[in-house]
């Protein structure tokens, strides 16, 4: 969101409601990078993420009068709208994830110093993490994307997902366990070597 403050967003909402067309565009400019990142993180497909972002903004702008700043921040409200549309896409498509893991060698070379090999190994780890994220269930992925892709607190995650805060916490923890398990299966030495390298 280009670090837009909630007050700025609320002012833009108020201006939009009073008929200022420029304020709509400013809201879009402020929020679209965040919403696109959320949608891409959940759908892992650029075209789907673009479509959902467009749908979410159209819905939000048409229903701007329904937004209640006492109940949630504009950012949270917009996240909720985008998330619900992403869920529709999961249901429609059953998420045909690209299995990047199948393209990876079973045991990747260990990163050593910052050599070209080490850089390559780090990239491999990133691909492994991306693949492992894609293998998570939608509920766990939502929690992880909001947590690490958007830096939301557990309370905010709970608000967006629509679950108790404890559930949000346990979903993030379960996602960690699942990711560690997936990474150990796909690339057993990567995580340990990276830890050693960083120590």
């Amino acid at each position, binding site marked *: 969101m280009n670090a837009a403050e909630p007050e700025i967003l609320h002012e833009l909402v108020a201006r939009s409601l009073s008929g200022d067309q420029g304020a709509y*565009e400013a809201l*879009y*400019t402020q929020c*679209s*990078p965040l919403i*696109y*990142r959320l949608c*891409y*993180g959940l759908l892992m497909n*650029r075209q789907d*993420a*673009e479509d959902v*972002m*467009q749908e979410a*903004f*159209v819905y939000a*702008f*048409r229903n701007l009068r329904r937004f209640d700043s006492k109940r949630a921040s504009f950012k949270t409200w917009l996240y909720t709208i985008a998330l619900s549309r992403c869920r529709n896409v999961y249901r429609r498509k059953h998420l045909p994830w690209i299995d990047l893991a199948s393209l990876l060698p079973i045991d990747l070379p260990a990163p050593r110093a910052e050599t070209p090999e080490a850089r390559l190994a780090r990239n491999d*780890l*990133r691909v492994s*993490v*991306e693949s492992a*994220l894609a293998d998570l269930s939608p509920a766990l992925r939502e929690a*992880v*994307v909001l*947590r*690490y*892709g958007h830096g939301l*607190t*557990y309370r905010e995650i709970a608000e967006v997902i629509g679950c108790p805060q404890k559930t949000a*916490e346990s979903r*993030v*923890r379960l996602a*960690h366990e699942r*990711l*560690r398990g997936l*990474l150990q299966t796909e690339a057993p030495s990567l*995580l340990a070597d*990276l*830890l050693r390298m*960083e120590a």
Partner: protein
Amino acid sequence: MNRPRPICCEAVQQHLAAYRSGEIHPALQRRIAQHLHACDSCYALYRNNQVLEQEMRQVLMAPPPVDFGRVWQGIQVDLARPTESNPPVRYALLATALLLMLLVPMTFGRSGIAWATPPTPPAPRSHAVVLLLERATPSPNGAVTLSETLPDTPASTPDAAYRTESLTVLSIMTP
């Protein structure tokens, strides 16, 4: 200052993510810190998660580029279109259609609605016997000649009993 109460590995692992972001009570934060200092396996898990989080952030913060200007144009086109009717309006239309489907057959003809006209019960057979007697013409020798007869009825039906009964009445009346 008192030393914080010890905490078990399971509880520490449960709160690791919240511990890293400082989203737990300071007292619990101190207990976990103390445990991590002493427990190698929990500390290894803590470091492991730390690296994993860094990698996840890298992956999730850098999606492929997108043309935000093109999407904005799409949004403007969509906003310019007339809105669909609201769901409550759609539901009201559906309910009206269903109501009409029910009311039209009830108003015109009532065909197909079984409860509208219950079947008329047959006239008691005893009335028919009285009618026959009224229409009977007595002969000079006192015998009664029936110009009409009761319709045939199966022997096992209750009507057969009426027929038998009516013939008995006739035989009593004839001298």
